[in-house]
């Protein structure tokens, strides 16, 4: 919350768009701003009415450089926009830097995304340290604009709950040192490990003790959230991501042309398989294991076909790891299986579990 907890006493507010950026049509600007208001009114008692003349509570304008509010803009990049806390006159007003390019898609900078953030300030919110929150200071566009639980808790702390019979809840950002942390997928990638959960990836690097957490869209804007499996075919420098009955292939940050593809056609799964739980490719043998419910398939990357005799029960090839796999990767010849908060280090040669650890043991907590 902003220092001093400024708020609007009247929760029925007006707003006016004083001028328009030439980067978008007027209708696109109106729509982006309207959606930003709807975002906040859907989780609070606040209502917003657009007016076209005279003074409104929240005046919205596109300006550049020094625009006489003691906070000049700085040209392209850097400072994108600002907004003033609730109050009379300039209070609540939102200024967008006209030296930026405003868009209604992935390209920098998405107006709806920035407007949703600035409106949080106009209503009394300050910046959040939660990278998954709209009120995080830095611009990150993950493809969709949604209030996180942190944003919702903030606005409801100022104005109370929405009149909505079902209280809206928002996504929580994973905490890398949460001992209850579980994963959607894990893969090696060019010698590193990448862990996936909801909209986020986590990775460690030897130079920096804290695990890095950010949006998957920072690397692969067009991958869906909530990935279910991922594995690397190292000698092709390719990583494959699975969700539902489709998969995407990437090389570094580039999604390869012609994806997504269907798992049935590419790997020969029966149509009864609706999604993959986990996958790992054994670098030594070129065999890729797919885990689906309590079964596993084995695919030969060289022959590009499923091996005969599969599917098998997971317990036949990997005794002791249980009958469900959330995620799996290979490192230094061993398989690391993840199910819930547990992680099994497995020796595929002796078919034995070597260690049992917490799922987040890789994050130096």
């Amino acid at each position, binding site marked *: 919350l902003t220092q001093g907890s400024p708020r609007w006493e009247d929760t029925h507010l007006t707003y006016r768009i004083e001028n328009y950026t030439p980067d978008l049509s007027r209708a696109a600007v109106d729509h982006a701003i309207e959606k930003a208001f709807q975002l906040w009114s859907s989780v609070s008692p606040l209502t917003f009415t657009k007016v076209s003349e005279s003074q409104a509570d929240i005046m919205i304008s596109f300006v550049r450089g020094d625009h006489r509010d003691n*906070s000049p803009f700085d040209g392209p990049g850097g400072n994108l926009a600002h907004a003033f806390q609730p109050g009379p006159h300039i209070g609540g007003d939102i200024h967008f830097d006209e030296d930026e390019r405003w868009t209604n898609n992935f390209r920098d*900078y998405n107006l709806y995304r920035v407007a949703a953030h600035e409106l949080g*300030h106009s209503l009394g919110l*300050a910046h959040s340290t939660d990278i998954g929150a709209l009120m995080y*200071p*830095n*611009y990150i566009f993950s493809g969709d604009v949604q209030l996180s639980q942190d944003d919702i808790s903030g606005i409801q702390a100022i104005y109370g709950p929405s009149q909505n019979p079902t209280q809206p809840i928002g996504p929580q950002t994973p905490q890398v040192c949460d001992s209850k942390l579980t994963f959607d997928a894990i893969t090696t990638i060019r010698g590193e490990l990448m862990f996936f959960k909801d909209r986020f990836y986590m990775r460690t690097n030897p130079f920096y003790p804290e695990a890095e957490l950010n949006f998957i869209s920072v690397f692969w804007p067009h991958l869906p959230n909530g990935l279910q499996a991922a594995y690397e075919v190292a000698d092709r420098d390719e990583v494959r991501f699975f969700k539902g009955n489709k998969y995407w292939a990437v090389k570094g940050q580039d999604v390869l042309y012609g994806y997504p593809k269907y798992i049935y056609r590419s790997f020969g799964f029966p149509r009864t398989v609706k999604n993959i739980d986990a996958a790992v490719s054994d670098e030594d043998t070129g065999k890729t294991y797919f885990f689906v419910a309590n079964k596993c398939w084995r695919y030969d990357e060289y022959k590009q076909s499923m091996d005969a005799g599969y599917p098998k029960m997971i317990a036949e090839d990997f005794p002791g790891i249980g009958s469900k796999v959330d995620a799996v990767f290979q490192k230094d010849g061993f398989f690391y299986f993840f199910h819930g908060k547990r992680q099994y280090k497995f020796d595929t040669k002796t078919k034995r579990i070597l260690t049992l650890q917490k799922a987040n043991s890789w994050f130096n907590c």
Partner: protein
Amino acid sequence: FPAATSETQEQDVETVQKYLENYYNLKNDAKQVERQRNNDPVVEKLKQMQKFFGLKVTGKPDAETLNVMKQPRCGVPDMAQFV
């Protein structure tokens, strides 16, 4: 200025100074911080910023910190009122 790593370029020094003035109230608070603990206000503010962004709190403009400072962002300060 804090004992920054040798390869910190001149413009990085300026980036840090400007960023802390814009978003961490460096100028206005400098006197106060100096008086209180006879500390370098830039180091204090740098630590505040590193803590806010979940970076390693070193008080030095390391590469991770500079990387965050160079990202496009909102003009409202992280640690002060914007009125």
